[in-house]
């Protein structure tokens, strides 16, 4: 009896890692074939390139198309000045490779801020305590914050993104289209 138990024990010593190895290989092969690598089921750089090249060769089948006329869908308005949530956004003017502190020490002024400021002021959107002060990025940011309190101004519909403005957002966007592009 003892001999049998000892024999079983000795076989288990090598059977255990060998069984684990088989399980690891089988699992890896299954995973490589079904997931992750996923949607394309490509497993090498060559196959990755072939996958890319296959899409380069794709030709549309025009026998039917979703739309038949340009009037079937309309592009969004004010694309440069509305963010992904429908709020007003203007790309920060100072895009130099400097830290915020360095930018504050040597501010960069957009010459179009003054005519923009006059334009929005004509619509009652003045944020400076004294309009004689030069317009700054901080003034623009504050104005955006005020106008955005009425937002969002854009909503996703099945037809596309549709702009729903207020008097203030209309004024801001009109001036931005005129001076901040």
């Amino acid at each position: 009896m003892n001999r049998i138990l000892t024999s079983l024990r000795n076989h288990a010593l090598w059977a255990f890692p060998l069984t684990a190895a088989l399980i690891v290989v089988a699992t890896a092969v299954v995973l490589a074939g079904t997931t992750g690598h996923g949607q394309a089921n490509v497993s090498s750089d060559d196959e990755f390139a072939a996958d890319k090249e296959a899409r380069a060769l794709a030709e549309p089948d025009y026998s039917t198309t979703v739309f038949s006329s340009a009037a079937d869908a309309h592009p969004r308005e004010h694309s440069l000045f509305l963010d992904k949530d429908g709020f007003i956004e203007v790309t920060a003017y100072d895009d130099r490779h400097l830290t915020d502190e360095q930018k504050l020490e040597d501010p960069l002024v957009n010459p179009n801020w003054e005519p923009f400021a006059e334009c929005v002021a004509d619509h009652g959107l003045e944020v400076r305590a004294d309009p004689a002060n030069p317009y700054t990025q901080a003034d623009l940011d504050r104005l955006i914050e005020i106008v955005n309190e009425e937002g969002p101004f854009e909503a996703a519909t099945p037809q596309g993104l549709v702009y729903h403005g207020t008097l203030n957002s209309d004024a801001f966007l009109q001036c931005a289209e005129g001076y901040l592009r």
Partner: protein
Amino acid sequence: MIRHYRDLLEGSVPRRQRVLTAAAWLILAAATLFAFWINGPTQSAEASHGRIAMLAGSTGTVTAGRCYPPDPIWANPCPANPHGFTNPYPFDIGAPAWTPVYAQVDYLPNNIAGGFITASTVSTGCAASDGPYSGYRVRVEISYYNTSGAYVNWNHESYLHLASTYGSIVNGGTFRWNNPSATVPLWPPALEDYRLNNTTAGGALVGYVHPWMSGGSTSCSDGAHLHMEADSDGAYNTSRYLGEPVTQRFSDIHFIHLAGINGLHP
């Protein structure tokens, strides 16, 4: 089992069993390495469910990106003054002057039929004051419609340090694009301006890499290259690495998860 292995080490197990056991453990180690290799981070790992990519705008070599967790892949240690940017995920491709720059998307599922694409110059400080030296900035916006004709989502990608000789798409209004791999294209041929999602065969020519000229601000650029920035839905492709050659309309630079785009690419 642990006690049995202790016996093995102490030599109370026959030599034949010891050799077999050692060999079995070696096989397990090899199997583990094989599992990592077969599922490892090859380029194919760049594709995953519902994730699309903005491809390299130009052919060149990866030169810079911002450090990001968990480990910076671009520079180690991260520079004290990180790469400047105004949109997320700045990425630089060293490309010679006049290298064409394309906007192109990849991995769209076949239920995305097409949409609109626009490209606009953006007047930032570097473009406005340093443009003649270091080039200009263009933002490309792509909207997506499905094969039922419903609007799905949009994203934008910025391309910096471009020459002022732009592609006709820039400041030219809104253009229409089709996905050639879609089950049904969005637009009929007469209304199709561009094809996207067809890698090297398509995309929209945005412009060319600016021939950098000395004399401008080194805070804006210090040599000819293409700088790309994604939007808030974007992410880096972490398999890119410093010094890696990338190819326009082929190499994935930014990954994007856009709500509503969930299918598998064909």
